[in-house]
């Protein structure tokens, strides 16, 4: 039953993404041209990735307080999913930069802090692989996740705190995002968030499988 619901939700999310892809064909932007439409993936992927980081932060804090391994599983699941979306955000941004700025990458505050964020969360996953003992692994990983979260506000506010090459938000304060594009952007945001939820649920189940494997191994060892 749970499998069917996850497949259904995943299918709905992919269908929404496909629908938006078709809707985007009709949009034209006079300043930047077609490449501006990359915003339909770039921004929702960033928001989703940073939301995942927020969830990982709260899950890690809760694990340290309660020592309940379900929160550790949630932290690792949501971190891995967030990492995938942040990778998508960085790559689509780089492709946009190649056309608009003429360069693939620049070491400005937003780009650098986002890359540092990706490296920190990749480090979190590597740290987990390096520690065998489950309680020690979960505790160290939770502390590391809380430390890594410090970078998230820096990513968000870097464009306010420093003069960056990265553009200011186009959605509010008289931003240039066309009003007729908002519904499609909203659907795109929903689709990517839904995908993140489905991916996290699948990863959570895999963590349950891993725990079952660990306990079966212990039983086999005891026999």
């Amino acid at each position, binding site marked *: 039953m749970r499998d069917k619901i996850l497949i259904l939700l995943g299918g709905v999310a992919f269908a929404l993404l496909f629908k938006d892809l078709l809707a985007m064909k009709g949009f034209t932007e006079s300043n*930047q*041209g077609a490449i501006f439409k990359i915003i339909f993936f*770039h921004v929702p992927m960033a928001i989703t990735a940073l939301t995942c980081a927020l969830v990982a932060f709260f899950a890690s804090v809760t694990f340290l307080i309660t020592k309940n391994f379900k929160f550790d599983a949630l932290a690792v699941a949501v971190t891995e999913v967030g990492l995938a979306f942040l990778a*998508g955000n960085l790559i*689509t941004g780089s492709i946009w930069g190649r056309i608009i700025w003429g360069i693939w990458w620049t070491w400005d505050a937003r780009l650098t802090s986002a890359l540092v964020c990706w490296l920190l969360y990749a480090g979190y996953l590597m740290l987990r692989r390096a520690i065998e003992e489950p309680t020690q692994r979960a505790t160290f990983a939770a502390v590391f996740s809380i430390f890594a979260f410090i970078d998230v506000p820096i990513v968000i506010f870097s464009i306010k705190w420093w003069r960056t090459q990265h553009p200011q938000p186009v959605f509010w304060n008289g931003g240039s995002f066309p009003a007729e594009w908002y519904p499609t952007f909203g659907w795109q945001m929903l689709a990517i968030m839904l995908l993140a939820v489905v*991916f996290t649920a699948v990863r959570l189940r*895999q963590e349950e*499988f891993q725990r079952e494997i660990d306990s*079966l191994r212990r039983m086999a060892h005891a026999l």
Partner: protein
Amino acid sequence: MFALLLQSSDDVVREIARLQRNYEFLSYGLVVAWLILVVYVLMMVGRERKLKREIAGLKAMLEERK
């Protein structure tokens, strides 16, 4: 006048090239975004199969030992 016409046709060619490059890079971006999602789904499917196989193997081994 003739030179002006030539210059404007050059501009048109340049503008068409710019638009084509724009679309080309947009398609790269969309392909990459979709690819990341699809590859991640495939990775998760592969991992799930591996975990289920491992559980089945361990259960069979425990049954044998009992």
